[in-house]
C-alpha cells in the first residue's frame, strides 16, 4: 500500500503499531497522536472549503516526510519539541487540547504562535517549518498544479513581451 501525500506516494510504516505514525520515518519519533495533532495544524493552515484541504492532500504527512529527510538533527529536535508543546499552549489559552479547539480558536492559536505572541521559540520555529512545508506541498500538489492548471510541463512557447492584464 502507498499513501498519496500531495500527489506523491509515501511508504506506509511497517510496524502496523497503532501508537506509531502511519508512514515510515527514519529520524522523527512521531506517535499516532502527534500525527493527528499535526494534521489538525496543517488543516488549520490550509482548510477544506470548496477545494480540498491539507488533510485531504495528506500535507501533514508530506511535512513529516520533508522534516524527516531534509532537516538536520537540530531542526528535527526543535520540530519535535515544538510539536510537544502545542497542547500546553492551547490549554493555557483555551483550556483545551489543540484538536479539541474550535476552528477559530485553532487559527488564533497559530496566528499567536507565528506572530511571536508567546515565549516558546521552539514552538514558533516548529509552526513556521510546518507552515512552509504545508504551503510547499499545497502549491506543488496535483490539485493545484494539474486541476487548477498552475503548472505546465510542456509550455511549447516563449513570449518575452506578454502583456499584463489590467483589471
Amino acid at each position, binding site marked *: 500500500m502507498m499513501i498519496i501525500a500531495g500527489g506523491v506516494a509515501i511508504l506506509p510504516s511497517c510496524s502496523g503499531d497503532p501508537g506509531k505514525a502511519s508512514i515510515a520515518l527514519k529520524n522523527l519519533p512521531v506517535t499516532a497522536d502527534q500525527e493527528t495533532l499535526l494534521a489538525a495544524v496543517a488543516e*488549520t*493552515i490550509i482548510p477544506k472549503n470548496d477545494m480540498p484541504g491539507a488533510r485531504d492532500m495528506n500535507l501533514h504527512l508530506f511535512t513529516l516526510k520533508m522534516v524527516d529527510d531534509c532537516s538536520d538533527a537540530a531542526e528535527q529536535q526543535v520540530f519535535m519539541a515544538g510539536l510537544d508543546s502545542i497542547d500546553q499552549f492551547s490549554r493555557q489559552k483555551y483550556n483545551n487540547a489543540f484538536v479539541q479547539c474550535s476552528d477559530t480558536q485553532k*487559527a488564533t492559536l497559530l496566528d499567536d504562535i507565528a506572530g511571536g505572541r508567546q515565549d516558546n521559540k521552539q514552538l514558533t520555529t516548529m509552526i513556521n517549518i510546518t507552515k512552509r512545508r504545508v504551503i510547499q506541498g499545497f*502549491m506543488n500538489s496535483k490539485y493545484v498544479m494539474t486541476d487548477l492548471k498552475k503548472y505546465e510541463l510542456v509550455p511549447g512557447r*516563449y513570449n518575452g513581451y506578454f502583456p499584463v492584464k489590467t483589471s
Partner: protein
Amino acid sequence: MPEITGDSIKDRTFDAIVIGSGISGGWSAKELTERGLKTLLLERGRNVEHIKDYPTTNMMPYEFEHRGEMPLAIQKAAPVVSRCYAFREDAMHFFVKDNEHPYVQEKPFDWIRGYQVGGKSLLWARQTQRWSDYDFEGPARDGFAVDWPIRYKDIAPWYSHVEKFAGISGNRDGLKELPDGDFLPGYPLNAVEDYFREHVHQKYPGRHIVSARGAHLSRPQPIHFQQGRGQCQNRVLCQRGCPFGGYFSSNASTIPWAAKTGNLTLRPFSVVHSVIYDEKKGRATGVKVIDANTRKETEYYAKVIFVNASALNTNLILLNSVSGRFPNGLGNDNGLLGKYVAFHNYSATISAVYNGMKQYRTDGRNPVGGGYIPRFRNVFRQETDFLRGYAAGFSAHRSEIADHSGTGVALKEHLLNPSLGEWRVGSHMMGETIPKETNHVSLDKEKKDDWGIPQLKIAVVYDDNDEKMRQDYLDQMAEMFGSAGFTDIRPARADKAPGLDIHEMGGVRMGHDPKTSLLNKWHQLHACKNVFVTDGACMTSTSTQNPSLTYMAFSARAADYAFGELRKGDL
C-alpha cells in the same frame, strides 16, 4: 549495433577506438563511423538510451518524493556534487556521487562528473558560442601559456559543420569578438533584457547584450528530423533528458546517428585503464579496458585512438599509460602532461530590481535563459591591470508573489491569486583564467580506485588575476545596472572552489612545439601520432566562451584529418 561476442583478437580489433561518449566522444564516433571506420566507443558508465532511459523526464513536480529537494543524508554523503546547481532529485541519477569515485583534492576542487553513455552532454547548460581570433591569439598577444597552433579560419568551417547538425539557436549579431554561426532562429530577449541591451548599446560603446546562443531546436531542419529530434518545447527540464530531442546531447543525436551507419560498437561499463603503446611499432595499438562490473581486463586494438574521456579523466588515462618509451605517461616527453590546467571563473554574481516595463511579463519559458554579454575587457587591446576578461549571463524575470501570512481560507486565496512582483535582473560572470604550470593534476602514488587505477590528485587554484577580474566584473556590472536605473543592486562574491564551473580544461595542451606542448594542430600527440585528444584536455587557453561547441568542432575536424591520414596510409 554489433555485440561483442568472441574473444579473438580479430573480434577486438577496430579501425578506431573512442574513449568516452560525452559531447566530444559522441562527435568523434559520429564522424569516424560516417567515414566508414569500424569504431569502438567505450564508456565507463551504464548505457543511457535516448528517451527510454530518462526515468524522470515526464514527471510532474509533485511526483518527486521531496519536490526536487535533495535529502540531507545524500548531501552529507556527497558534498561535492551537492554543490552543483543541477544536482536535484530529477537528475541526480546522471551525476557521480562523491563516494562512488573518490579523488584527491590537494587543493579544494569540486570535480563534477557524469559517468554514463552521453556523459555530461545530458546535463550541460547548452550555451554555445564560437571563439574568435581575439581568443585564439590571446596567449601569444598577452604572453602566457603557448601560442595556439590554430586560428579561427582553421576551425570556422567545422563550427558550421557541427552547428548545422546539432542545431544552434542564435541571432546574427555581427560582432567581431563573437562570430556568427549557422544559426536556427534565436530566442528573443524579454522586455527588460531588451531594455538593458538598448541602454548599454547607447551608453557603453563596445559592450553588447545578445540573445544567448544555445543548442536548442528553435526551428528544426530536415537534418534534425532525420535524427528523430523535434522542436524544443520550452520545458527547460533538459537535465532530465529531453523526450523531444529538443536540445543537443550525444544520446539524442550523435550516438544514434553513428549507430545507424552500422559501424559503431558501443561498449558501456568499460573503464579505460590505459592506452597501449607498442615500442617496436612506435605507435599506440589499442587500449586496456577493465569491465566496470566484472573487473575483467580486456585489450582492444585499433589504428587510431581518440581520447575523449572528459578533460581531467583524459589526463588521468594518459598519465596512467606508461611504457618503456613513455615512463611518465603517453606522449609526455617534456613533463608537461597534467600541467597548465585552467577553468572558468564563475565566482561572482549580481542582482537588482527594475521598476519599469510593468506592462509586460513573460509567458512560457526561454530555454537558453536570456541574454549573453560577450567579453568586452581587453578584447582589442590591453586596457586593465588584469589579463583577459569575462563574459557574463544576463537575464530578467518577473515572478508572482503571494502573501504567505496568516492561515486558513484567506491564506489559500492569497496563494492561488498571487500578484506580479517587480522585474528582477541577474548576471553571473564567466572569466578566463590563465593556465599555469602550478595548476596541475597528477596520479596519487598510493590511492587507487575500485578498478586498481590510481586516483587523480588535483591542485588547481585561483590567482590574483582572477580576483582583480572578479572585482572589475562587479564594479562594471554595478555601474551599468545603476546607469540603467536598476535599484537594490546586490553584488555577490560566490566563493566557490574551482571545478564547480564544470569548465575544467587543459593538461594536454595544443601547441606548435613538442618541447612546450603535448598536441599538434591536428590534436595528435606530438610523440604518438595515432592518439588524438579533442576534449577539454587539449585547451591551450580557456577564453570565456562555454567550451562544448569548440570541442565538437575540434572532434569533427580531427576525425576528418585522422580519416584522411589513414586513407593515405600515414597512420
